[in-house]
């Protein structure tokens, strides 16, 4: 965690987006993570995605748990309220925050220790509840803050920096998210920004629970031969199912494409996900096919990336609860308190 703000010096020619902000306006404090940490690349991708989406930074609430990954919300969107909660319990806090004010955009940032170990339950229940948010796990298979212990996503047989071999089966958060009912599920690689930025843009614009597992190598403790979460391993074993373009609904669509290769997915808010399927038989609208495909490739040691599943018409917890359009935190006594007369009638019924 740093207390150093980046100097606010703008190059006069920096481009502004439609809401009048430059990329610099989406930055946060100076990162204290190790040089080369995959998490910093993810922060950069989030900054890029929010800038490109023309989001007003203060309309985002960014929440995290505990761990290296959970520190990162301090390093982007400095004008947003952030909340670094307790280990593994970000999803419930985000759920409550979302219930209080449905008008903000919710970004949940977590790690593999945070979400796959102590927070596995909260991760699971936030997915099945359909809380509208972009839930990003920065997955390096290792506990960085406590110096190199295996996390629950470390592959069976992979080696720690000290040479220990992991004997436990890994928790696959993508498989779980698919099984639990998340309506937008993707996997990215921190070393592939071109794929990651549109994946995040799609997640932020999605109408329900969006989950992205981002393989994010830990340069200090898990970037060595024997690790399946190292830069080299992921680069060599990356199996991308799709390339994704995110197109705002307000823009004319002018993306170059060949017939049969492209799936356009229009989301509920009018935005468009343009999926270039790299495998002609891959259908991102089929939850069960996605699960099978991913697991088949995983058996071969391949890391499947891209947008794996999307339900473009997904709704969220507010829809399920039928809550009012106005944020609950904006309601006053006139809307909330039944008043003295109703109380007198209630008293009468209790005699």
């Amino acid at each position: 965690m740093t207390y150093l703000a980046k100097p606010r010096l703008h190059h006069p020619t920096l481009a502004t987006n439609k809401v009048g902000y430059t990329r610099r306006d989406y930055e946060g404090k100076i990162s204290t993570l190790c040089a080369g940490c995959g998490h910093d690349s993810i922060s950069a991708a989030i900054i890029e995605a929010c800038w490109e989406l023309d989001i007003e930074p203060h309309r985002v609430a960014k929440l995290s748990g505990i761990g290296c990954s959970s520190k990162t919300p301090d390093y982007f969107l400095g004008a947003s309220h952030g909340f670094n909660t307790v280990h593994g319990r970000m999803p419930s806090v985000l759920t409550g925050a979302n219930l209080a004010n449905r008008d903000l955009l919710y970004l949940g940032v977590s790690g593999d220790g945070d979400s796959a170990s102590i927070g596995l339950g909260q991760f699971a229940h936030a997915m099945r509840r359909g809380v509208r948010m972009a839930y990003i796990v920065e997955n390096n298979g290792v506990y960085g803050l406590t110096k190199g212990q295996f996390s629950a996503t470390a592959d069976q047989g992979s080696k720690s920096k000290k040479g220990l071999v992991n004997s436990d089966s890994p928790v696959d958060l993508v498989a779980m998210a698919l099984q639990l009912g998340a309506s937008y599920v993707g996997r990215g690689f921190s070393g592939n920004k071109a794929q990651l930025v549109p994946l995040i843009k799609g997640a932020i614009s999605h109408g329900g629970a969006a989950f992205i597992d981002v393989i994010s190598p830990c340069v200090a403790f898990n970037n060595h031969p024997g690790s399946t979460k190292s830069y080299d391993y992921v680069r060599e074993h990356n199996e991308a199912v799709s390339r994704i373009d995110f197109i705002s609904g307000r823009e004319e669509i002018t993306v170059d494409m060949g017939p049969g290769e492209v799936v356009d997915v229009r989301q509920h808010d009018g935005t468009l996900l343009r999926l270039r399927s790299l495998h002609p038989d891959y259908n991102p609208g089929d939850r069960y096919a996605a699960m099978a495909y991913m697991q088949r490739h995983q058996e071969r040691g391949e890391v499947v990336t891209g947008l794996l599943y999307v339900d473009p018409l997904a709704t969220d917890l507010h829809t399920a609860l039928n809550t009012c359009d106005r944020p609950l935190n904006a309601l006053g006594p006139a809307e909330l308190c039944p008043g003295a007369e109703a109380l007198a009638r209630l008293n009468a019924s209790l005699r």
Partner: protein
Amino acid sequence: MAPPEGGKAHGTTGAGVAPIEAVNDFVIKFANVNGSGSASANELFAKAILRMGVPVSPRNIFPSNIQGLPTWYEVRVTEEGHLGRRGGTDMMVAMNPQTWDADLAELEPGGYLFYDSTRPLPPSKFRDDIRVIGMPLTEICNAVYQDPRQRQLFKNIVYVGALAILLGIEPEVVEKLFGEQYKGKEKLLASNVQALHLGCDFARENLEPLGLRVRRADRVGDRIFVDGNSAAALGCVYGGATVAAWYPITPSSSVAEAFQKYCTKFRVDPATGQQRFAIVQAEDELASIGMVVGAGWNGARAFTATSGPGISLMAEFIGLAYFAEIPVTIIDVQRGGPSTGMPTRTQQADILACAYASHGDTKHVLLFPEDPHECFEHAAAALDLADRLQTPVFLMTDLDIGMNQRLCAPFTWDDSKAYDRGKVMSAEELEAGRDFGRYKDVDGDGIPWRTLPGTHPSKGSYFTRGTTRDAYARYSERGPDYIYNMERLLKKFATAATLVPQPVLRPAAGKTELGVIYFGSTSPSMHEALQALEARGIHLDALRLRAFPFPDSVVQFLAQHRQVFVVEQNRDAQMRSLLVNELDIDPARLVRVLHFDGTPITARFIVQAISAHVRKTQAAGAAGTKEAA
């Protein structure tokens, strides 16, 4: 109807013990089998007496089990209005063969046993110092009803009918209650009235009146009859809670269920059908408090309801809410601990766990309602206090108040009341250039200003975290920054002492050096005990605590009395520990009066404990020795 063969009522009190004679002052207990449908019949019985203007104090007594096991319902009929549990039973309605021996043993000598005499029992199954009233309930129901469930259910109504005649309860009153209960459901109304009359008629023709009588009085006034959990839920509705997250646990589950019921009644927009509330049954207590923390952080009034084991699970989040300064309301309906303890029995044993919940140096605001009326008031107050103080606030009720209907003052509400949302800085204030330091004590009361997410494009945003920070919410491990915050939190706690409900003093009739401190559900038994002690010449000034932190008046009360009894329902004298610890008082001056068997404390117990101590002290004084507390 004549008693069927084999169903002869048993005989009279023997062994020279006269039957108990009492009007509007007795205890009747129903021993039932869980799932037999007796609960609504028993409640009907209690309400009928209430409608005759005679106060009652009923209690559900139920072991932690599901269907088929024992359950009891005890009704204290009390013209004097003593709403605590009395102890002892004058009449037992013994409907559960499994608990027969224990139920029989519980009767006071001269008491009455009412039982289903369809199956004859040998004389050895009775006591000769009680009066036995047999009624062939099963046989009557089997003769009238074909459906097995009806045979079971109406047995309860039939005995209510018989008891009405035996005790002098007007059947018309019961019929009127049925009319209200089954409004618009004429078929149900007619069949219940029929069952009632079956019971009345049998009793008129075959049974003799008892020495126990209910006589019309005018002692109920405008009081209402309601359980504390419903009242607390209603307080949350009136207090403006919009987010509730909970996980089922006895005895608190009915708080969330009642909140759902009242919100559905009062908070659905008639035009759109949309809800002005959100209730989530979370996956566990960790998630439920997490959601409340998130909602509180984001400016909604939010609460959870739980019990001791839930508090244990929530402790980490409570510490975060304390240190990050987030409004949170927690309703703790206490039960017997530790661990799973006695899940369906009552205690006041979470005091220290809540006062100091979580690791590190923490202190939390606790409110102690004495009855459903205060459950309502304090729940609404807790939401205000949490927002004002930006901290967790606990409503400390217990099973005795929470799950039993209690006669109490009607709920009141002032429509001109605005919610105290505390120090929330608006976009306009930020725009006007007001200095915003999230953890800065600008007003000298220890309470900083906060902003809500999304307020302003460039001002007022900050990063909330459980790690330490400076006054501007910037991460800092500097000692002076840490100390500034920790001492400011203490100052805030001192401010809390001026805002919480103040203690209630009941001075003794004459001047005395003895005092007694009590709180929460102990209240009605304490009031009865004070009268009885007064009658024995033991005068006590009584102070009912309503909150922690302790206001100055508690310090003054302790200073004014040589010795103060602290009456509480736990083993380790937790409130006494809190008083000693927080007020730095000599422990020798605080005398423990502890009741912790899981049943509600009785006036008898308090009187016995205090008078024994006073006698001992007097004897020691007379002998010239120095008495230690």
